[in-house]
């Protein structure tokens, strides 16, 4: 019995193996936790702390929360930043606008992405991998460059206007860039793969004979889709929608480059507070509030996902 072997007679390797068997699990699980702690939780706490401070002309540009006086430490929490967010309607408008734009973009992305994912999932093997490759291909170019490309397409002197003017359909160039429509185009274009991929993976896993069974039992094809395919692909719809919705809410680059001056989104507000006004505490409060807005859907998503997995196992 190896467990009876006295410790001394063990080689270094055997000791290491024993240690790994005992603690390996903790180590493997521990690494991502340490990562999350260092690069997510600590920055989050710093931002949280700043959001309770006051702006100062100093280095760093905010007051300290902790004061050391004779008896000990006093903590001064300043809720003023959050109250300020409530008092100025600009912030509420920006939040609501972000959510509205993100929600509409998500629905458009879903409407475009679902048929594409369905088509890919039903394609023959060789065609399928080519189509999947095409979906992933844009990731190989910088996101920023791709959004700039859209400027070239939508601009006053852009491709579309040039073409339409050349054909004579219009005589005055259309204003497409710096509108909300351009923001939708940008978001839908950018986040479409995040919708297609989870949808594809649920649709691809689905047994085709389920649809045949529905047809066999008297469903017309569209009804078989509504009664069988759609409900069974809901996990993919949910995953895709959240993957599009959550980053869209905080999107900064797309509204900045494609949107007009009136396209108010929370990402832009945040940027302005931080870099233009240099008001770190307000910027932090905006960020924390946005996080709270986003954490709720994430938690809900995780909750439904784990329930789904429970049901499947």
């Amino acid at each position, binding site marked *: 019995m190896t467990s009876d072997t006295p410790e001394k007679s063990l080689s270094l390797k055997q000791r290491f193996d024993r240690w790994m068997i005992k603690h390996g699990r903790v180590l493997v699980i521990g690494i991502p936790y340490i990562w999350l702690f260092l690069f997510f939780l600590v920055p989050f706490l710093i931002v949280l702390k700043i959001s309770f401070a006051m702006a100062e002309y100093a280095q760093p540009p905010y007051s300290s929360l902790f004061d050391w006086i004779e008896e000990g430490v006093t903590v001064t929490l300043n809720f003023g930043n959050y109250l300020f967010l409530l008092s100025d309607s600009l912030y509420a408008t920006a939040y609501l606008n972000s959510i509205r734009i993100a929600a509409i973009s998500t629905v458009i992305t879903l409407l475009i992405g679902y048929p594409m994912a369905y088509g890919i999932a039903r394609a023959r093997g060789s065609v399928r991998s080519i189509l999947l490759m095409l979906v992933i291909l844009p990731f190989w170019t910088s996101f920023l460059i791709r959004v700039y490309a859209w400027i070239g397409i939508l601009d006053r002197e852009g491709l579309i206007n040039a073409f339409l003017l050349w054909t004579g359909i219009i005589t005055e160039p259309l204003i497409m860039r710096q509108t909300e429509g351009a923001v939708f185009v940008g978001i839908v274009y950018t986040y479409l793969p995040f919708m297609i991929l989870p949808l594809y993976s649920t649709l691809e896993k689905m*047994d085709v004979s389920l649809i*045949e069974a*529905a047809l066999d*039992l008297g469903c*017309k094809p569209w009804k078989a889709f509504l009664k069988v395919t759609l409900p069974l692909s809901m996990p993919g719809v949910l995953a895709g929608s959240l993957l599009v919705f959550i980053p869209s809410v905080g999107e900064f680059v797309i509204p900045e480059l494609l949107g007009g001056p009136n396209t108010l989104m929370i990402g832009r507000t945040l940027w302005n507070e931080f870099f233009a006004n240099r008001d770190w505490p307000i910027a932090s409060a905006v960020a924390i509030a946005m996080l709270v807005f986003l954490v709720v859907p994430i938690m809900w998503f995780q909750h439904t996902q784990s329930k789904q997995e429970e049901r*499947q196992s």
Partner: protein
Amino acid sequence: MLVPEAVLDRAHEDVHKTQPWNNPDAVPYIRFENVTKKFGDFYAVDDVSLDIYRHELFALLGGSGCGKTTLLRMLAGFEEPTSGKIYIDGVNMAGVPAYERPTNMMFQSYALFPHMNVEQNVAFGLHQDGLPKSEIRTLVSDMLALVQMTKFTKRKPHQLSGGQRQRVALARSLVKNPKVLLLDEPLGALDKKLREQTQFELVNIQEKVGTTFVMVTHDQEEAMTMASRIAVMNEGVINQTGTPFELYEYPNSRYTANFLGQVNLVEGVLIDDDEKYAVIKSDEGGCEIYIDHAVQGHRGMTFWAALRPERLRLTKEPPEDTKYNCVSGKVEEIGYLGGISTYHVRLASGKRIKVTEPNSTRQIEPRYTWEDPVWVSWEAGAASVLNK
């Protein structure tokens, strides 16, 4: 056909009712007319013509990939034939989509809807017909009672065992009272013991409801136990159609003989024939084989004699008449199975013959042992003669 007249010629009223395939006036319920299905250049089903009658439990039997499922799917409307016609109850099915066909299918994977419970699964097809709710409820509960699943109505498919899922799948396809029920390997996913038990249940249910069943299976025992008639398929072609009895006793080819049960095939040449008998000389079998009926062919033609192991006799002494139907050899392998024993006997020609003997009396020690010289012999009627 090599089936003697006597077998086919039992055509009187009774037989016409229970064996409509022997009644020349009977109208087939399902008819395949020269049906071919090509996938690319590959013939999955090749010029199949087949008649199936009402109330039959018909089995398509064949090895994996021989086109059974494809044939069934063409009946269900999931595949269109490349050429040929399919009729159900006199109606040409060309262009009729699956959802309008009078067939229902029980899928090999069962294909139960995972997001619906047992009751909803079974009611699904009835809802498509727009039946009133109360009627649906009655039909569903009757059907669940028939398959003994009343206790599990609220369970989801993943909460059921394989056997229970099989019952739900059967109930779901049968509740719409189709003209034809199609079953693709209905028992394939069950373990052996459950499979044997379910075979009889399925036959009982079929007799109770009277629906015409067309079943696909690769298991010859299952087909023989359940089916009224069997079509033996090979590489997209139907080799032979008949009752289990006809196929076992009068196979038309070496393929069928081999597929149903076990058989020794010995090659030989026709050396003597007459209206009443024929003699085949077999070098492989090391003897002359006497057949007690005429065979179609001329002298010098090659035939195969099919000898079922259970029809062969094993003796230590030579039989009285050694002119025909006997050959000597050595016991090479013994399989003692309790109820029966199987022996492999090596002949002088090198051919191995399999013999099974019932152990109908208790022995003090095994009758034969390895290397025992033995004689294998059989009755004049035991061998079937095959020409392909």
